[in-house]
């Protein structure tokens, strides 16, 4: 199971990537997409939405189930990956690259302390 070491992880199976410009990208992990199965629908927030850690910011749906997405950190949505509207299968095919979901700016970095590193996340999904 792929767990890249340059990312941070939430217990809700989201990954968080710090960009050079201080923004962060968020998506769901390889483990999460495997558990969900074929993803057929992704719902994302509007650009400009303010999120607090723990807020639901959208959902991913597989053939069988709906799964809420929870913001792992605070911030303001600066961009969404609208390719996922037409190509939700990217979540299965490329969860860490093509299927990034939202980008946040004005991120409160103190919340990063709550996240797991790759080793801790691997232990979680054991």
């Amino acid at each position, binding site marked *: 199971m792929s767990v890249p070491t340059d990312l941070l992880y939430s217990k809700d199976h989201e990954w968080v990537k710090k960009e050079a410009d201080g923004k962060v990208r968020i998506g769901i992990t390889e483990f999460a997409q495997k558990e969900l*199965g*074929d993803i*057929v*629908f992704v*719902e994302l927030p509007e650009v400009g939405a303010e999120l607090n850690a723990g807020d639901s910011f959208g*959902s991913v*749906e*597989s*053939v*069988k189930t*709906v799964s809420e997405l929870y913001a792992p950190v605070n911030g303001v949505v600066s961009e969404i990956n609208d390719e996922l*509207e037409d190509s939700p299968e990217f979540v299965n095919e490329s969860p860490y690259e093509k299927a990034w979901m939202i980008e946040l700016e004005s991120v409160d970095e103190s919340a990063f302390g709550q996240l797991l590193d790759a080793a801790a996340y691997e232990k979680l999904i054991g």
Partner: protein
Amino acid sequence: MPDLKITPLYNYYKSQNAKLIDFGGYLLPVQMTGIKNEHHAVRTAAGIFDVSHMGEFGVEGEGAQQFLQEMVTNDVAKAHPGDALYTAMCYEDGGTVDDLLIYCFDTNHYQLVVNAANIDKDFNWLSEHAPQSINLTNRSEQIALLAVQGPHALNSVQKITDYDLTSIEHFKFAKHVSLNGVDSLVSRTGYTGEDGLELYCPWDQACSIWNALLEKGASDGLIPCGLGARDTLRFEARLPLYGQELSSTISPLEAGIGFAVKTNKPIDFIGKQALITQKTGGLKRKIVGLEMIDRAIPRSHYKVYAGDKEIGEVTTGTQAPTIGKNLGLALLNSEWTKLGTEVDVDVRGKRKKAKIVKTPFYKRS
């Protein structure tokens, strides 16, 4: 965790690392390689399903036909030896005990095939009403069931038998068919909307037939399938699932299986009066097809509204793999069931527009 039962394919599932869930008290896989992949295999080639969790009852003795006529809604006298008959079994108020298949061996000997979750309930219900002359046996744990479905299904199964499978017509069956050397009952039936066969064999022989079919059917595109694809396939073909489109509070008429309700058959059956009243008075609610207009997927139990008025709920919904649309079946107040009527579905707190569409969503050409 209740004690879960396993099917003869349990070790196969374990060897494939398949994730198993509780379905009707049995441990079964949601998927083997992926729901969409399995779904498309059945629509274009073939898939094999382990449905050994289904229940099988023997009904034997003088007056077996008469007894079943009193218990079920379809006309059992129309089923001759070698016929499989789909029917509902109802309570006095018209609610559904179960939907089932009746295999006719002769007028004193039938086999019933019932839903796994209803095995005990059905057996008790039948036992309560059975006269002395009828011998009712629950053979659910001796008989395994494999369903091979799809345009290449017959071709695949033909490779493990000398019996001419094309001679078994739709909704007919043959006894004592040797499948890979195992004495089996084979019917031209299924739950996917495709052509196909259902294979009844002894519990401990199912795995050998399964393995032989996977090996011989591979060149036909036959792949193993789980419950997820079984559900999306039956959904597109608008075949009801007990617990969703049918229940103790949903009658077979409301569920749209009126073709299996023969209120004019010569023998009175349980629920007849209630069903006649529903028929003559007009149905107050019925199952219809929904297609989402807004971007959203309807799911079981989502409420449906016309303006502020709640008019029913979704019974099954998903993104239909063959059609690619977000579709649902919903039990709605009949006033709002005309084709093209726009309604709202409450999708996790947000109202999303949908319209009533024709069913089945998919019909084999």
